[in-house]
């Protein structure tokens, strides 16, 4: 298979250093990405080539991963891809997280990042080519050595074999290979030739994560390091008016207390030798806050406002068919439904942190960042440096779910501001769990109002839908290509692009401005849009007395391959149990496509101690080629557990008089083991199509499936989340 033509300029630069072995670099010109890159072209810089593959003299092959590993398994999957094309010995592969550099930018987005479930989707071909080109150069070197031709050589497990049984290891050939020209084009393997891709390959990082040896960003320890915490305003954007810090300064180990600017407003930084004295001192600060001119959001006021807006048409996103179709349908064939979704904190398990050391003419930073390009730039800006003067290390992160992908880089800016004051000293900024739960950057609250007119065939003949929710992207560098006609697509994804055949559909949006910083949350707009679509569709199915899988099949457009395939597979996979549930159990079904991946889900639910008890979830997924089916299985088994954050009774952030009411996992309690399915079986639709992501697609399907099951069990259709009482 020949590599597909790639519309970008690139060349490989190769060098050899005796101590480190062969380095193969892929040097991309950021200017080539044109309008797809959110970064203005003039910001592209020329960086020294960075290595993707390093063949060490001892035979170890170190592969750089161009995005954060935060649970999704990319640190195993992308190296698998490269190692497969390279015919490397997998048992000798070491994967590292690449630092911030141009060469590691996402080929599609032109910035170094992880998000949008794009790790495999965007870098699959890139890493294949890297592996194939490296292999080609090693073969060329061997062919020379044996005075033969490349076509007569074979590779396997980091070894080249010649036509007369000559062998040479990659390590032995590295020096010579480095002098070979990098091929412009390579043949990639056919699917039949894959040795790793498509196989259930275990994660590379398991053992160190099981024995406490793997270091996360929060575990960093540097000589002379100080730890900082920041007192943030209780109302977003408020400013420090007065600080009384005498008690705080008496805490032994505290070294500095000073006011700092924040993304909005100001706060107070407390620096100490260790975390505990810093935290103790902060709790002894007495701060008066100035809230003049600062909007103080209140959840009940927001709901009133949102409901009002939801009763009026907004900016038109979809206007298809007959706008008056709904009015022509008799009232008893119309359903009106209102949905409410609260603010959600991402709450990754590892509290947010960043370490920065400022040395005047350069700086060094360490962070488990989903947005290395933005974060490196932000630190440089705060320190008065150019980005290339900031060495930015990507640390392993304890979860993210979007929380570590912030366009304003507020955490990194806080750390840099403090590091600037303490020149020469590494400063580790730590956000406590209270900072995290109360610190904003939530999945925004949303209100939906849906009016459906049911046709004589039981299918929706008219669909009028209003969505109310803050825009995520206005005011960010993504605005220019993600906001169209004032509409932020992330608020309506999952509805505006529905694969259901809704010939008469009106969808409009309101984007109120609210003084609460907002952010993605794993699967973004699909979190609430899929819930609305899949619960409403399910109500219609029940009303039509049709099986929920059959109804969806009937309503989906014929070209909705990525949903029809999983629905078929789900049908087969659940045939043994879904119509034989014991008394007190009910079936819930949903299907949804997001980020290019189609998912169908069935759950077996009963009510236990007033909570939904999910005995089983069956998932069917079409993600194109499953690069690592074990990763795909894990992502779906666990991702639905994450998705259930939307249903657990304490899964809501609320505000009163401008202040967040929850403070930690006592008030905002994510799903524990009892809240999640006892078992999840995952079935992958066989495919040879390009791989699509699995990071986010598990999330949208689970909440509607469970609520649909509860609807069948109790007759009650929940439209307000989370489920406080069922």
């Amino acid at each position, binding site marked *: 298979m020949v590599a597909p033509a790639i519309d970008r300029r690139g060349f490989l630069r190769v060098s050899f250093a005796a101590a480190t072995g062969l380095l193969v670099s892929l040097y991309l010109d950021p200017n080539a990405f044109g309008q797809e890159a959110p970064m203005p072209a003039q910001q592209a810089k020329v960086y020294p080539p960075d290595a993707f593959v390093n063949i060490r003299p001892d035979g170890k092959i170190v592969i750089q991963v161009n995005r954060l590993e935060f649970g999704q398994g990319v640190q195993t999957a992308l190296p698998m891809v490269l190692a497969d094309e390279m015919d490397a010995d997998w048992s000798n592969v070491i994967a590292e997280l690449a630092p911030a550099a141009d060469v590691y930018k996402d080929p599609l987005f032109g910035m170094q990042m992880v998000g949008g479930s794009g790790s495999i989707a965007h870098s699959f071909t890139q890493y294949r080519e890297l592996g194939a080109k490296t292999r080609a150069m090693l073969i060329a070197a061997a062919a020379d050595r044996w005075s033969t031709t490349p076509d007569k050589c074979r590779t396997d497990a980091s070894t080249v074999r010649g036509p007369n049984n000559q062998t040479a290891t990659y390590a032995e050939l590295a020096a010579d290979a480095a002098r070979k020209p990098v091929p412009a084009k390579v043949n990639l393997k056919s699917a039949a030739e894959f040795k790793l891709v498509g196989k259930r390959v275990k994660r590379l990082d398991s053992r160190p994560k099981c024995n406490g040896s793997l270091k996360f960003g929060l575990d960093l320890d540097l000589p002379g390091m100080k730890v900082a915490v920041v007192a943030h305003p209780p109302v977003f954007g408020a400013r420090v008016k007065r600080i009384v810090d005498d008690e705080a300064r008496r805490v032994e180990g505290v070294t500095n207390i000073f006011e700092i600017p924040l993304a909005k407003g100001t706060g107070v930084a407390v620096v100490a030798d260790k975390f505990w004295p810093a935290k103790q001192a902060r709790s002894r600060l007495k701060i008066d806050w100035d809230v003049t001119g600062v909007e103080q959001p209140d959840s009940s006021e927001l709901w009133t406002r949102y409901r009002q807006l939801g009763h009026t048409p907004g900016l038109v996103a979809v206007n298809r068919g007959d706008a008056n179709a709904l009015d022509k349908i008799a009232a008893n064939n119309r359903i009106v439904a209102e949905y409410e979704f609260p603010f959600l904190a991402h709450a990754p398990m590892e509290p947010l942190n960043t370490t920065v050391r400022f040395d005047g003419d350069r700086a060094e930073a360490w962070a488990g960042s989903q947005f290395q390009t933005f974060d490196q730039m932000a630190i440089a800006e705060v320190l008065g440096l150019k980005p290339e003067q900031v060495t930015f290390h990507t640390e392993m992160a304890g979860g993210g779910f979007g929380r570590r992908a912030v366009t304003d880089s507020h955490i990194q800016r806080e750390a840099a501001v403090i590091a600037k004051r303490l020149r020469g000293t590494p400063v580790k900024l730590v956000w406590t769990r209270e900072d995290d739960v109360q610190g904003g950057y939530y999945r925004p609250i949303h209100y939906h109002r849906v009016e459906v007119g049911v046709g004589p065939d039981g299918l929706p003949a008219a669909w009028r839908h209003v969505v109310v929710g803050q825009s995520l992207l206005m005011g960010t560098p993504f605005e220019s290509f993600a906001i169209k006609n004032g509409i932020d697509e992330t608020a309506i994804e999952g509805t505006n692009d529905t694969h259901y055949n809704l010939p008469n559909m009106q969808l409009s949006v309101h984007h109120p401005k609210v003084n609460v910083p907002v952010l993605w949350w794993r699967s973004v707009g699909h979190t609430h849009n899929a819930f609305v679509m899949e619960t409403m569709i399910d109500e219609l199915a029940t009303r039509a007395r049709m099986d929920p899988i059959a109804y969806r099949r009937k309503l989906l457009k014929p070209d909705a391959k990525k949903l029809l395939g999983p629905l078929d597979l789900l049908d087969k996979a659940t045939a043994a149990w879904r119509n034989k549930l014991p008394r007190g159990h009910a079936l819930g079904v949903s299907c949804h496509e997001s980020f290019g991946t189609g998912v169908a889900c069935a759950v077996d639910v009963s009510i236990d101690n007033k909570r939904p008890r999910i005995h089983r979830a069956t998932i069917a997924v079409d993600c194109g080629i499953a690069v690592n089916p074990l990763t795909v299985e894990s992502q779906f088994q666990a991702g639905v557990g994450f998705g259930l954050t939307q249903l657990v009774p304490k899964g809501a952030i609320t505000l009163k008089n401008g202040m967040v009411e929850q403070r930690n*996992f006592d008030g905002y309690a994510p799903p524990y083991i009892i809240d999640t399915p006892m078992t999840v079986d995952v079935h992958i639709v066989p495919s040879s199509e390009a791989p699509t992501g699995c990071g986010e697609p598990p999330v949208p399907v689970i909440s509607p499936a469970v609520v649909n099951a509860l609807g069948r069990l109790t007759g009650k259709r929940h439209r307000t989340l989370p489920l406080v009482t069922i």
Partner: protein
Amino acid sequence: MPRIRAGLLVSIVVVVVSWIGAARFADADTTTTAQGLAAWEQVYSVLTSPRCINCHTATNYPQQGDDRHRHVANVVRGPDGTGVPGLNCIGCHQETNADSTGVPGGRNWHLAPLSMRWQDTNDRALSSAEVCRAVTDRSKNDNLDGPGLLKHHEEEPLVKWAWNPGRKPDGSARTLPPLTHEQFIAATRRWVEAGTPCPGR
């Protein structure tokens, strides 16, 4: 039976019981049944205050806080009220309060047995009569008689903890029961002297 006659019967019984009670504690002030019942109400007010009732649940979990919400981290009762492996009460609750982290502590922290539940399964406090019956039922209360109950109130470390409950994570002091320990003991004594009478239904 007509109400007046029933009332008369009860009065006769009360008088007889008081007389018996008085005969038993010849060296104490004569504590009438009425006084004993009043004393019980005081005892009941302490037993059903958060510091006590939070561990006298009818469910498989303890409560915490003045609002008596379910205890964090899904801790459960376990087979003997000490939690389960991995989540034993004493894993977190040490022998004394940990004020710097806001976790209360006392010797042998554990849940009262289900026989000593003072709430229903909806986490609502039982009535005065129901709690009194439970507390005085020797088949349920570890075979304690009146003096035994008094000693339990005087000496059991977890009982005494309620009056030294430590600080919450935010640094503020936990609220105390509605009586002082001394008042609680005095009320218990009066109730015991009266023969541990319980109110009617």
